[in-house]
């Protein structure tokens, strides 16, 4: 990756750093959107390698279950402990289940799964595709008249879109399990009371928003990682740079879009 100059005509110009950063960001967003269009076009044309989709589902989804479970469990513990402590103070301990489940289904479930998959899968995809670029494997595909978007991106995107909602729901249930344990141990709240509160609080709309967020997270993780991988050239150092870039961009975009969806669906009117 080329270093952008910050000195022009012998004068130090710090705005050139911002200009270079902004320019590369805009370029990456454009590449990501174009790649998404290509990918959707191939999916609509039915050009899908299903065995590869299942292989990628295993890599992206099944192998992420453990790490998502551990993260969701401890996030659930910490969050439930804070909520239980405050609600017990106000004598509203029967509402613990409802508040915990709302936080989990609306924000913590999709965010936890998204961040963990971005770290584990997004970085791996960026590193793999960058290595393929550097070792001319992508050029080899092009010479064989195979579009890398069809061969490499379509299976990863479909696997991400299938597995991300599963991981998010899974993270939510693990978090709920943590909430039940904390409610019993810290507030002496029976499991039945906790679950009653959950049932009364959660609406169908919460599930819909949860799935929308999961779908958007999958799109962000796969598309940004693939676009970064397929646009990087250079040597071994650039694999590391691409990996870091993929993690930073996917995680930032997950938080940005999470807020956008939340503000569009839950903001008071």
């Amino acid at each position: 990756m080329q270093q952008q100059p910050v000195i022009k005509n012998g004068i130090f110009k710090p705005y050139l750093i911002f200009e270079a950063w902004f320019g590369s960001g805009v370029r990456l967003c454009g590449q990501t959107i174009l790649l998404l269009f290509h990918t959707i076009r191939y999916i609509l044309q039915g050009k899908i390698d299903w065995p590869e989709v299942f292989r990628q589902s295993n890599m992206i989804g099944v192998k992420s279950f453990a790490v998502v479970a551990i993260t969701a469990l401890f996030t659930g513990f910490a969050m439930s402990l804070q909520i239980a402590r405050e609600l017990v103070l106000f004598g509203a301990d029967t509402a613990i289940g409802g508040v915990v489940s709302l936080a989990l289904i609306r924000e913590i479930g999709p965010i936890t799964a998204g961040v963990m998959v971005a770290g584990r899968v997004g970085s791996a995809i960026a590193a793999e595709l960058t290595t393929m670029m550097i070792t001319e494997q992508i050029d080899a595909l092009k010479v064989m008249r195979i579009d890398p978007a069809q061969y490499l991106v379509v299976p990863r995107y479909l696997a991400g879109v299938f597995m991300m909602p599963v991981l998010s729901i899974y993270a939510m249930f693990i978090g709920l399990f943590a909430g039940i344990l904390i409610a019993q141990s810290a507030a002496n709240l029976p499991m039945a009371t906790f679950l009653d509160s959950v049932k009364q609080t959660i609406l169908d709309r919460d599930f819909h928003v949860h799935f929308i967020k999961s779908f958007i997270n999958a799109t962000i993780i796969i598309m940004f990682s693939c676009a970064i991988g397929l646009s990087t050239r250079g040597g071994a150092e650039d694999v590391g740079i691409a990996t870091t870039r993929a993690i930073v961009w996917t995680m930032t975009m997950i938080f940005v879009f999470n807020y956008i969806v939340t503000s569009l669906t839950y903001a008071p009117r």
Partner: protein
Amino acid sequence: MDSNQKRKNESSKKPKVQVEDLHKSFNGKQVLKGVSFEVYSGETLAIIGPSGCGKSTILKLLCGLLQPDKGKVEMATDNIGLVFQGSALLNSLTVRQNLSLALRGHKLKRNEETKKIEEKLNLVGLKEQIDSYPSQLSGGQQKRTSFARAIVYDPEIILYDEPTTGLDPVMSTIIEDYMIELESKLHAASIVVTHQLSTWTRTADRAVLLHDGKIVWQGVPQEAMNSSDPFIKQFAHASREGPMEIG
């Protein structure tokens, strides 16, 4: 004139590859400054020159991986095979799957595809390694697999990017023998980019020497050693003294 020579002459009337006044620059640095040549069926052209003179760029322009800034590239067919410098085999696929991928767009029946793959692997002596992954092969075997992949769909034009660089002398000779055998069997138009003396003198019918983005000499490889041209004299004798400043 034997029948083989006759067939070669008949199909050689129109060039398979025609390049005119090719220009290409990267980040303001001009790499090619007006390169022209043509290659006919059954002929092998070597593009030689010091490292960084733009040889591999020409191959990438020929197979469409890069677009020229100026000039014209005319290929008589899009049935092209490219042997990459670093083999460029897909690491997640076996040898069989790598070759099968190259046949993907050719819509062959499964038994026809298997027959073709085995035939080409037999040609490069790698039938035993058909189910191995690239990481399980030696450098020479990877290069030969790359060969098999490039020729599995019987291309009419074969491009070789530094096919013997980094290989030991024995393996280089084996690869060169394969190239000579392929030329006689496939009757394709071939372009070899190399700076290895034995490769271009043994495999090519013609050679062009590239320096500073231009062709500075062209001729028959066998005559290069005795040529009085200062450029090819310096390159062929690996001399530090001469008009080519390497830096």
